């Protein structure tokens, strides 16, 4: 049983597409002319929204994401009294695809936000302890919100890039603790990131693998997963994000590919976003 039976109605065209994509992969080819390990063209613009503390517009092929950082002062979580608060929200805007609907966040939207959240949080890119002023009482609350503007498959990887780009260019208003009270200063301070988490989405059809699936390819996959690595080569987040199953004997190969591809995307990111 393959995934195209379980994700949605297995239409005849989807089955044909599945077989066609597999045939092409066997020849190291893909529908859009890429090789299985090619990532679509990445484009990154930072500081695209002046009102936001940090922002970025990132595209990967035909998928485009806009991300913005806003901040506030609030109370640390009771189980993390020494840390600032970091919150991620995603929205799949109805203008991005006819399959997205307005309204409360969909299951897909929640999953996307939580994968991006995990990629940033678990890689410990942000030093949250530096964002706390008075333990248990006052800390920065960093909101990272992003919107999918145009959807042509795989929003996970451009979303992580957009999040990292927006955070690494963000400038927070500076505060000082004076007699137990916070005083806002004129200057701003950056959120310096300790590592650059980068994710890669890998699709499987039988024993073949491809990265950064397009929308057309996505519907033909047996299964897929998103893996995030930090700059030091540690795996910091994974999610199998569709039905189907991952054969155990492919696992090692999948992660080797994932690490190599995220290293590649990271070097592209450094060139394009011009961040330290």
């Amino acid at each position: 049983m393959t995934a195209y039976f379980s994700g949605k109605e297995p239409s005849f065209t989807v089955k044909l597409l599945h077989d066609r994509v597999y045939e092409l992969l066997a020849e190291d080819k893909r529908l859009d002319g890429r090789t299985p390990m090619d990532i679509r063209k990445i484009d990154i613009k930072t500081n695209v929204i002046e009102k936001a503390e940090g922002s970025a517009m990132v595209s990967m092929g035909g998928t485009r994401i806009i991300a913005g950082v806003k901040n506030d002062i609030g109370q640390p979580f009771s189980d993390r009294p020494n840390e600032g608060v970091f919150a991620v929200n995603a929205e799949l805007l109805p203008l991005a695809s006819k399959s997205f609907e307005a309204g409360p966040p969909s299951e897909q939207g929640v999953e996307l936000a939580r994968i991006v959240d995990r990629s940033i949080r678990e890689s410990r890119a942000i030093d949250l302890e530096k964002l706390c002023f008075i333990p248990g009482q006052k800390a920065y609350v960093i909101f990272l919100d992003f919107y999918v503007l145009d959807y042509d498959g795989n929003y996970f990887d451009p979303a992580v890039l957009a999040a990292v780009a927006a955070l690494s260019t963000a400038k927070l208003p500076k505060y000082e603790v004076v007699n137990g009270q916070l005083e806002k200063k004129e200057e701003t301070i950056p959120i310096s990131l300790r590592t650059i988490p980068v994710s890669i989405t890998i699709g499987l059809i039988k024993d073949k693998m491809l990265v950064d699936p397009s929308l057309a390819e996505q519907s033909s996959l047996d299964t897929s997963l998103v893996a995030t690595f930090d700059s030091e080569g540690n795996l910091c987040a994974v999610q199998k994000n569709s039905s189907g199953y991952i054969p155990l004997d492919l696992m090692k190969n999948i992660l080797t590919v994932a690490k190599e591809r995220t290293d590649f995307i990271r070097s592209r990111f450094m060139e394009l976003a011009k961040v330290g």
Partner: protein
Amino acid sequence: MNMKEQVLIKPDGTRLDGRKPNELRPIKMEVGVLEKSDGSAYLEHGGTRVFAAVFGPKEMHPKHLALPSRAVLRLRYHMASFSVEDRKSLGMTRREIELSKVIRQALESVIFLEEFPRSSIDIFAEIVQADGGTRCAAITASSLALADAGIPMLDLLPAVAAGKVGGKVVLDLSDVEDKYGEADMPVAISPRLNAALLFQLNGRLSLGEFDEAWELARQGCSKIYEMQRNALKNRYETYKPEEET
């Protein structure tokens, strides 16, 4: 106060609850525990307690969601308000929405859904106490409830987490180990398909540590698989339908 000072591995190499790194917590399973559902199971995994119930295959409501070629699987993973230290708000949190999705997508691929066109199979996994590993417990229990409901499946699905705490790669993280440890990797592996159906990771692992954690999770899943089979045998080996009075 500071999380980093939490000791998770004692000097003798054992864990806070006395377990060895590759040791599962005590697990208890029972099948057919809820009267009105078509299939049900109760699972205790360490301090985690979960009820799972299956309704269906039945006619799909609302009708427009029905598919002509197969059944639609719906699953709700939900935690009781009192299942955690600080009362959980009622209703579905974002975490519960995400976990419902990944658990459903794990189970979807072991059920012969195409045997039941136009119908729905609804699974409810209710966590009544959470002590780490709740999504895995929900999978293990739901899979038993599906078997109890007589729904044809490719395999039973056992699930358990592996991860890293106090610098050591360990199997089956408890709540404290999950909170203060370095990495938590919940996995569901079907021994028959020799494949992973749930695979998530939160936290940092080197690729070497990943291999180690993966092997522990695989072994843990085979052990839980045996327990699942025994739980079903216990229920059905001597089972006689109750006589009508």
